[in-house]
């Protein structure tokens, strides 16, 4: 995909690297990997909301109240719950990436076990945060 322009007519048939569609996405390792990306992109919205809140507070009392009303609505709460899960998930897979970088957890068994722990952990921390908030 990197090279642009037409392929020469007499170019030899060379093997292509496996494209995204041919991968089996049902396994846990690829699921946790792509979710790291998706949550990372989603968390950009989290930064936007954080800056919006601080900017509103710098603007004045009325602007801040408006922002808080928005975030306190049921739609706002759903977004915040989703973002908090995305944050915990991205944090945990991010820490796992640091272990990968140091050469650990590469065995399929370890990658899958840590994947299960990350999914359960992210749900646990999200639930604990919101139950504490509402409790």
């Amino acid at each position, binding site marked *: 995909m990197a090279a642009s322009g037409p392929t020469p007519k007499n170019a030899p048939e060379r093997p292509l690297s496996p494209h995204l569609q041919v991968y089996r996405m049902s396994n846990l390792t690829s699921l946790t990997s792509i979710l790291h990306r998706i949550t990372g*992109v989603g968390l950009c919205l989290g*930064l936007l909301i*954080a800056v919006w809140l601080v*900017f509103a*507070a*710098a603007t004045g009392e009325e602007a801040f109240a408006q922002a808080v009303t928005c975030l306190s609505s049921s739609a706002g709460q759903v977004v915040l719950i989703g973002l908090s899960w995305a944050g915990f998930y991205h944090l945990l897979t*991010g820490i796992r*990436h*640091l272990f990968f970088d140091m050469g650990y957890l590469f065995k399929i068994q370890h990658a899958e076990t840590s994947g299960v722990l990350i999914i359960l952990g992210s749900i646990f921390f999200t639930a604990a945060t919101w139950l504490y908030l509402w409790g």
Partner: protein
Amino acid sequence: MKTPMARARGLGSSGTGTHHWLQERISSVALIPLFIWAIWSAVFLAGADYFIFTGWLSEPINSVLMILLIILTAYHAALGLGVVIEDYVHHEGAKMIMLIAQKLFFFALAIAGLFSVCKIAFGA
């Protein structure tokens, strides 16, 4: 951080090797405690009104940590989103425009956050 081979051969066509990767890791490590602080603060501040929020944010420790959180998150996001764009946007022109646009966007966002925290902290 360079492999001996890279040092021997120069930097190749990209002109750079591990810089992007290393910056992403360093910012990620710094963001671990900052994220935990952010969640803890958000729980502490839930339901706070304007005066409680600005009072909290003007405490020097909170001002500094909030500025660090915003700048490092924007930096980390620009690095990460850049890779996502490079991976999935294959049209050269669109890719270049998106890469530059997202960098400017996160730069502007960081400046907006930085200025806002300073304004509240200095009580203007």
